[in-house]
């Protein structure tokens, strides 16, 4: 069965066709396309108007790449939330229109459940089965959440329960803010991840927050502030200015810096800072994830969202004996529509079809 997935919850306009919840026939993400040339303007980044402009060509291309037309589809899946309501509305409205025009069932998907399915789909496509109960860590610029996943009754599908989440900043946001304040530009995760191995991860001692209440909750705001204090104390202004100028210069040439180039503008003390920061974030993530996994006796751990692409996190997780970790592939870590189509497949099988009265929901919880 082929499902067309549509995702427009935040910055990316995306569409994909996925077969039987496992085989990705096409996956188009607008912010990664050569959109300037294609649509004669700067595309996505935010806002419903930009989604509106991109959605038709993106869906069309997803169908073309998959070599199918609407008649060959079995359902339309769309992200209902959480996200920006204006952005969500574009995807939801367009999905409804196609569903109505082509008489295809419409399936509503929670964006966060989509992230979990990006991993389940990958395992399924390799013929693997992820053992339940599982714990999912969804970690990106907007999320840092732990969910337990248990097999529910066949007619209802998996049961999710929120185990922990960030009390303040998301982990990806901490990466972006630290990179920005140090003059590394945006996005910050990949740069810090690439440079961290060149510094001493124990060079600077950052303390992690002790949680009152739920000990499985995360906090990254204090770490961000601690990095800021360190920078203020060490008079990095000149260094940051140099690096910032370097970033601008590369951007003007449409080039991305190599690790060697980064190293020429990043002194040892700053490399130690990056390594120590990354070490602290990864420790915070893994420590609470493993505590959570132990509490629920998880047989597997799923990691998805933009930060799942972090090499340091992957390596640290690989050193853990049990439970087994499953990471989303790099392309499916960030927002995409293939995961939405994949999450919709079991719903379609169960007959969980949304009506045309489907509403976008800015704060749609996956579980309480």
């Amino acid at each position, binding site marked *: 069965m082929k499902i067309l997935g549509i995702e427009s919850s935040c910055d990316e306009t995306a569409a994909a066709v996925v077969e039987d919840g496992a085989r990705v026939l096409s996956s188009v993400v607008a912010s990664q396309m050569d959109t300037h040339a294609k649509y004669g303007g700067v595309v996505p980044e935010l806002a419903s108007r*930009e989604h509106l402009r991109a959605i038709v060509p993106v869906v069309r291309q997803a169908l073309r790449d998959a070599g199918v037309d609407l008649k060959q589809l079995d359902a339309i899946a769309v992200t209902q939330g959480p996200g920006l309501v204006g952005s969500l509305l574009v995807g939801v409205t367009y999905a409804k229109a196609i569903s109505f025009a082509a008489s295809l069932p419409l399936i509503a998907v929670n964006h966060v459940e989509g992230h979990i399915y990006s991993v389940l789909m990958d395992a399924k496509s390799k013929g693997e089965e992820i053992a339940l109960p599982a714990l999912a860590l969804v970690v990106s610029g907007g999320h840092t959440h732990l969910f337990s996943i248990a097999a529910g009754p066949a007619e209802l599908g998996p049961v999710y329960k929120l185990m922990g989440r960030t009390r303040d900043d998301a982990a990806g946001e901490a990466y972006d803010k630290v990179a920005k304040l140090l003059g590394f530009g945006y996005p910050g995760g990949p740069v810090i991840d690439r440079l961290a191995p060149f510094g001493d991860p124990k060079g600077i001692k950052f303390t992690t927050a002790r949680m009152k209440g739920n000990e499985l909750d995360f906090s990254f705001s204090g770490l961000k502030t601690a990095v800021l204090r360190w920078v203020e104390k060490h008079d990095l202004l000149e260094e940051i200015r140099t690096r910032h100028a370097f970033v601008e210069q590369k951007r003007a040439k449409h080039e991305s810096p190599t690790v060697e180039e980064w190293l020429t503008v990043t002194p040892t003390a700053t490399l130690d800072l990056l390594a120590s920061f990354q070490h602290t974030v990864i420790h915070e993530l893994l420590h609470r994830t493993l505590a959570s996994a132990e509490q629920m006796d998880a047989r597997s751990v799923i990691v998805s969202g933009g930060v799942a692409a972090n090499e340091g996190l992957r390596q640290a997780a690989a050193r853990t004996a049990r439970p087994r970790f499953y990471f989303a592939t790099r392309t499916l870590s960030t927002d995409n529509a293939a995961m939405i189509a994949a999450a919709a497949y079991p719903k379609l099988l169960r007959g969980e079809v949304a009506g045309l009265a489907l509403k976008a929901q*800015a704060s749609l919880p996956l579980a309480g």
Partner: protein
Amino acid sequence: MICALRFETHSDEETRAAGRRLAGFFPAHAVAVLAGDLGAGKTTLTQGIAEGRGAARAEDVSSPTFTLIHEYGDPVSIYHIDLYRLDTAEEARRLGLEDIFDAPALVLIEWGDKFPEILPADAFRIELTRLELADGEEAREIRVWTPGTEMVCT
């Protein structure tokens, strides 16, 4: 603008408590800019305000930097917005802020002072400043400016 209130807090919990007290200060329908450096406590203060207004529990309020807009309460009584990630006033406008400003809610905007041209004239201003005390401890000064003509806050 007239400085109406001033708090000094010495922990995140005190900052949230200041937020809870501040909650009753704003009218039901108001816009307030949250100004202050990274780590000044803008989101922490918002947690207190949201709790004080009965819109959300403090632990349910997280940073909107990536997601741009968070809504709390049913019906929505608090909008928590963050413009940190945006580069131009045009991008901020495209978020549909004007519609949100018209909503019968308290609209709190982190980094709102980046784009003063998009703010309503009667916006409140909440300024957070980190203070280094003589004993090496940290404190936060929170000042609230009501819309008006004079600058008399010291």
